[in-house]
């Protein structure tokens, strides 16, 4: 049915061809000057171009290709390369088979016989096996060396141990990667007792090979994945081989895959997502078939896993998202499909690419939170309510009165991460810094000096804890006084500059035995609640507003000098904007007159936990700011392989591993990107000018624009966002982008050599040119790997400046340190 309508359309295109350039025929709009949105369809002109091209070529096959390639007629032809992608026929397997054959015909000089087709498939499989084998061999070679902690293994190994010990920790990345490392360690018999203190520590008897082996295993799959992706995009074995060789022989990818790091795991899922997306797109002629569904859901699963390892996974999500939108746009414009079918397509994608990954991602967090149920080094980063879940934390299974009452002894915690508790101690502000009164600070650790007594502003005489007095609850909007329990001074503010933040007012402890002045009065307010309500422990977000000056109690987060014991500054800010710095909650609450309730009631729900851990992670990421006076790696350093990372050792007696890309591969990649942009723009402009390309060249340019465009998009998405990031950056952040750039190199050189070979008329010469070109690139990559392999597998002995070193003469850039 679909097939028939497709033919019908083709016929319509054909009949509209001879339309004269007048009347309301599409050809009228050939000269266009109007503005169009990118991605906005321009159907008439498209018909016009298609018509022109079709007219130029007489071959019926050719027309079929055109129709298949550009079906439906209203294909959006925006500027983005991503839209110019290969669209195989949607007309059933038979037509697709023919289509492939035609494309093959367009590529190879002779049309292959069925036998040679089968032979080719077998060849591809053999090559895939060879590539996989080589990849595994290189990655697992000398995996146990060095037998000490290298670079970030100290973090991720430690975190793996935390999972095995089930202690709670905090990291800026989502948990999947570390969970997998922990799992690998657990399965391979590592007991989680190694401390992973600092790089260079010997592993001794601890079993670390399981974790390294797991990372290397995932890292080894990158090469076959890249091979398959390129094979699918370009339909050319040499291109795929070239890509695989570049990645196998890249010392950087090799080094990064051999240690307990998140990067091999992340890259594995990125490439898996890319591969399954490419595969499912090539199933587009058989929608809703079993392979189609499985590739689609595999894409979704890989996306969730990529994001679950590092937030960098967002970029591949973006790429798949863009592709999906373009895809749906094409389907939507295909008038032969009913709206119901289009709706089904949409729902399938929503299900597999949005709902499935979301569920999976949340499941990862659920496991993470369930596994880590013991108090550990990460507690302080999280809110009081969160800590109540962790066994070993003093809030765990605690029971305290729920509503705040006068006379209670409380601790007050700032809501902003890593600010701590409101604190005071028997030390005065030094001379010259505001009034010489008692210091008030915030302090991260639990301490008696964090305790405050909440009192009514006007009564001090009667002891509120006297059992003869009725309990009176504190309500939103009450005027209160906070008395420091240890020193009996009141929380006080006045019109003096704060010690560090000049525009804020100073906060001090004032008065003796609880008697002060009207500057000790604060209005307690609950954020987003009505007046008169009671105040809940842990749950209520409160603000303290100074009655006289109208300012709000907050912490600036700045560290006081030595006189303030390097605790954090507390100020009263005249700016009433709500920021987390000026919002507090009550954590401990002691009042013998009130019944205690279990804190379990207050336990946050799963969505709250999820939200909170993301907020903490994002803030942690933003907190990783580089210092001014230090040399930091800049994104523009990366593609030129400007400087590597020391994984292990620095001196000539150490076992040294240095993360650096194979310069031959990387510089080839760099040249290829420039060449691709040049060639691509020439072709696009020529096509826009209506140049008529020969059939063979036409097929090649399509591979170049569509397949190459896809990986170029991947490279850009995984590289350019780093220019906008404020956090500290490292060389290894470039590696996902490098995978894409190597795939681009493979596609580009294969196509380029074919294009060059197309010049000389003789086909045998053409084949020879192509074969020699590809072979020399392969051999070049292999030889450079032979030269640079000590970087990855480790070097001992003199540094490269020394002529006796095996690396002598290979330090091509001054900035390399080996």
């Amino acid at each position, binding site marked *: 049915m679909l097939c028939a309508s497709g033919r019908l359309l083709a016929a319509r295109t054909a009949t509209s061809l001879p339309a004269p350039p007048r009347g309301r025929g599409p050809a009228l709009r*050939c*000269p*266009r*000057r*109007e*503005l*169009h*949105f*990118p991605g*906005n*369809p321009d159907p008439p*002109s498209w018909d016009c171009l298609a018509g022109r091209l079709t007219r130029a070529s007489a071959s019926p096959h050719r027309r079929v290709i055109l129709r298949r390639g550009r079906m439906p007629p*209203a294909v959006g032809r925006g*500027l983005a390369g991503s839209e110019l992608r290969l669209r195989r026929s949607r007309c059933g397997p038979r037509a697709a088979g023919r289509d492939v054959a035609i494309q093959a015909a367009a590529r190879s000089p002779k049309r292959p016989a069925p036998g040679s087709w089968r032979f080719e498939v077998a060849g591809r499989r053999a090559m895939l096996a060879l590539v996989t084998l080589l990849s595994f061999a290189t990655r697992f070679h000398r995996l146990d060396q060095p037998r000490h902690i290298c670079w970030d293994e100290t973090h991720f190994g430690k975190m793996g141990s935390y999972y095995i010990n089930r202690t709670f920790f905090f990291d800026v990345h989502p948990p999947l990667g570390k969970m997998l490392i922990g799992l690998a360690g657990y399965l391979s018999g590592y007991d989680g007792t190694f401390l992973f203190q600092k790089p260079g520590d010997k592993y001794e008897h601890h079993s670390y090979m399981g974790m390294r082996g797991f990372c290397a295993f995932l890292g080894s799959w990158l090469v076959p994945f890249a091979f398959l992706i390129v094979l699918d995009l370009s339909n050319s074995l040499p291109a795929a081989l070239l890509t695989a060789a570049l990645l196998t022989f890249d010392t950087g990818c090799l080094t990064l895959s051999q240690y307990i790091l998140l990067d091999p795991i992340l890259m594995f899922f990125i490439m898996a997502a890319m591969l399954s997306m490419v595969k499912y797109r090539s199933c587009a002629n058989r929608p809703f078939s079993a392979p189609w569904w499985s590739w689609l859901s595999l894409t979704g699963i890989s996306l969730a896993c990529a994001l679950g390892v590092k937030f960098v996974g967002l970029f591949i999500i973006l790429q798949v998202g863009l592709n999906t939108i373009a895809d749906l*746009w094409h389907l*939507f*414009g295909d*008038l032969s499909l009913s*709206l119901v079918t289009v709706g089904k397509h949409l729902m399938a994608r929503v299900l597999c690419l949005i709902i499935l990954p979301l569920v999976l991602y949340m499941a990862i967090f659920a496991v993470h939170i369930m596994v880590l149920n013991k108090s550990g080094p990460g507690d302080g980063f999280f809110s009081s309510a969160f800590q109540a879940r962790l066994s070993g934390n003093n809030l765990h299974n605690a029971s305290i009165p729920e509503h705040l009452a006068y006379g209670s002894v409380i601790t007050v915690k700032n809501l902003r991460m890593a600010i701590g508790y409101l604190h005071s101690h028997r030390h005065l502000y030094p001379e010259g810094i505001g009034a010489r009164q008692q210091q008030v600070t915030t302090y991260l650790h639990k301490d008696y000096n964090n305790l405050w007594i909440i009192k009514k502003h006007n009564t001090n005489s009667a002891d509120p804890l006297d059992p003869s007095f009725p309990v009176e609850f504190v309500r939103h909007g009450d005027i209160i006084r906070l008395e420091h329990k240890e020193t009996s001074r009141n929380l006080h503010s006045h019109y003096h500059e704060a010690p560090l*933040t000049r*525009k804020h007012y100073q906060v001090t402890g004032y008065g003796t035995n609880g008697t002060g002045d009207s500057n000790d009065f604060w209005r307690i307010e609950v954020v987003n609640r009505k007046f008169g309500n009671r105040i809940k422990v842990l749950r209520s977000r409160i603000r303290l507003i100074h009655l006289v000056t109208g300012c709000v109690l907050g912490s600036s987060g700045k560290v006081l000098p*030595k006189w303030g014991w390097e605790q954090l500054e507390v100020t009263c*800010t*005249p*700016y009433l*904007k709500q920021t987390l710095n000026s919002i507090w909650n009550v954590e401990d609450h002691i009042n013998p007159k009130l019944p205690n309730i279990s804190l379990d009631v207050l336990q946050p729900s799963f969505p709250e936990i999820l939200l909170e851990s993301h907020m903490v992670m994002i803030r942690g990421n933003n907190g990783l700011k580089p*210092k*001014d*006076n*230090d*040399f930091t790696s800049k994104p523009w350093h990366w593609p030129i392989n*400007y*400087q590597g990372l020391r994984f292990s050792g*620095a001196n000539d007696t150490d076992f040294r591993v240095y993360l650096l890309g194979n310069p031959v591969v990387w510089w080839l990649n760099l040249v290829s990107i420039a060449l691709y942009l040049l060639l691509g723009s020439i072709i696009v*402009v020529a096509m*826009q*000018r*209506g140049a008529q390309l020969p059939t063979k060249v036409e097929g090649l340019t399509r591979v170049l624009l569509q397949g190459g465009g896809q990986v170029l998009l991947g490279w850009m998405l995984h590289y350019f966002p780093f220019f*906008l990031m*404020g956090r500290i950056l490292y060389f290894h952040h470039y590696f996902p982008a490098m995978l894409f750039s190597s795939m681009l190199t493979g596609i580009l050189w294969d196509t380029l050599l074919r294009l060059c070979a197309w010049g000389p008329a003789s086909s045998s010469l053409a084949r020879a040119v192509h074969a020699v070109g590809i072979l020399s690139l392969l051999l070049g990559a292999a030889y450079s790997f032979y030269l640079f392999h000590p970087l990855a597998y480790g070097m001992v002995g003199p540094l490269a400046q020394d002529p006796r070193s095996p690396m002598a003469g290979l330090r091509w850039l001054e*900035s390399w*340190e080996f």
Partner: protein
Amino acid sequence: MLEVLKRPVVVTTNINLNIVALTGVGLLSRLWHLSYPRAVVFDEVYYGQYISFYMNRVFFLDDSGPPFGHMLLALGGYLGGFDGNFLWNRIGAEYTSNVPVWALRLLPALAGALSVPMAYQIVVELRFSHCTAMGAALLLLIENALVTQSRLMLLESPLIFFNLLAVLSYLKFFNCQKHRPFSLPWWFWLMLTGVACACAVGIKYMGIFTYLLVLGVAAVHAWHLIGDQTLSNVLVLYHLLARAVALLVTPVTLYLLFFYIHLTLLCRSGPHDQIMSSAFQASLEGGLARITQGQPLEVAFGSQVTLRNIFGKPLPCWLHSHQNTYPIIYENGRGSSHQQQVTCYPFKDVNNWWVVKDPGRHQLVVSNPPRPVRHGDVVQLVHGMTTRFLNTHDVAAPLSSHAQEVSCYVDYNISVPAQNLWRLDIVNRQSDRDTWKTILSAVRFVHLNTSAVLKLSGAHLPDWGFRQLEVVGEKLSRGHHESMAWNVEEHRYGTSQEQRDRELELHAPTQVDVSRNLSFMARFSELQWRMLTLRGEDAEHKYSSTPLEWVTLDTSIAYWLHPRTSAQIHLVGNIVIWASASLATATYVLLFLWYLLRRRRDVHDLPEDVWLHWVLAGTLCTGGWALNYLPFFLMEKTLFLYHYLPALAFQLLLLPLVLQHVYDHLCRSRVQRHLFSTLVVAWYSVACHVSNKLRPLTYGDSSLTPGELLALRWRDSWDILIRKS
């Protein structure tokens, strides 16, 4: 010749009275009582000081934007005969009689007034009706926030003016393109587009968003031109070249020109000198130039020099030493060498002087002829006042414990030997035999024994180090960083061998003679770089707001309060217009998507030419709004309501277009149309009413009672000032 005389000379003009009228009311609304209040209003206090600097031709550095905007304001001051003598210290200060307030506020007010007829023209060029165009212009006219902002010495109204001018001239050019390419008007409008873009970027960096919008639209149009096969290749090439010259080369040239004028005008040294490099400072009159003029150019063995760190963060400072030593034991229990401290000191001081010594010879004077020091030479640095040698050794630095301590060597007769040889590494050398030049050369000192590099770590030493900056030997030199580079600032040839004489010599000022000037490009790139990287202190402001609050007008800024009465100027928008503009934007986007999806299914609701105009208008107006608004979500600096005004101007253009579209295409019957027109008229009357209500806050000319002010406080977040009586 005679032919010409036979014909009468005829001048035909078309005067669109609409435009004349709009210009008239625009001028009236913006210029009325312009010199009231005669007091500093809000950010005038900020821009005013720069105007004074221009008047006195004193160099300054302002990281808020390129200099064209400041120069425009200064031009007003120049025309009004301002002498620059006014202390811009607080908002509300009365202007003295020498300040030409009217002239200073004239240019922004003119820009604001002319935006009104320009809005009319843009809508007409977008091929919508004159009635719609009038609507757009009138909205711009009565919008209170725009009026307030353009009546003061501020930069938003010139920015909006040039934004609109860029769009208008591009549209004019585009409409010429169809019929008369390469004609005189075609060239005129094309060039004007480039010029307007450059001016917009020159006023504030955010002008770049409008520039990008125009470039984007021009690129899409050029792409269609490439696809036009009725044109020959050569013609297409001409078209592309013309656009490249007008839209790329011209703006860049003009931008450079702004800086050229800026740097030419500001030739005297001023308060921000210290931020700039020594070479830059030396190019200004007075200041450092007075000291460095006539210094010998080439540093020789025996030279007396001060060494300034090139990175200069957190503070610009000079290599320094003094008699105090490092404490034997630090607070954290680590030990030091207990030798003489070496620090970086942010003030000029006699202890900043060092003598460059040849390790092979004993004397500290320059030989005759002087022997210049070259790249790669090994030198010793002798501290002028204490005659100790700059030294580093394998002892951890006081604060950056991964780096080596740098000290001036004191011989305690223990086994720590002196390691005081440094290899000179000229970073910006032309050849390997380059000599070390005063001011111009950036040099690194590489320690011979440990290959550590002398570096400013950026940390402040504790009290024992007098809170000066720490200097360390960086051992793991992970790439080059500017904090490792130093340059000679003051320099003279040493003449006296004896310690006492030398101390006297160091106290005496250096000699004076010739000046060396930097090229314009070097000065430009340094200035631009410093402007972009200068990080102001954490500026928290009472009236700062977040982008989300702008759309809903949840924020306002109190600009000025009369010293006695409660007359006040308050930046607050016409809430009816803001709400309907946002509504119109949403409507546009939804309608556009709806049409787009239906076209995709081959249902054409709109005729082709209407659709194309609809798309072009949307790209320019919605795109202009989005580009001028959305990037603020990514910015970390302190933001204010007035940052939204350029985006608002584009939104106001869109509003009448959407109304006309609804009237033309969505109202089917005559009754519906009548009803719709009535609604629009009613809505506009309400907008006018609101505008009039807020007028006292806009012009600040009448004092309202507290009751009236409270009645105007329509939103709780508006911070209208009410005087307690």
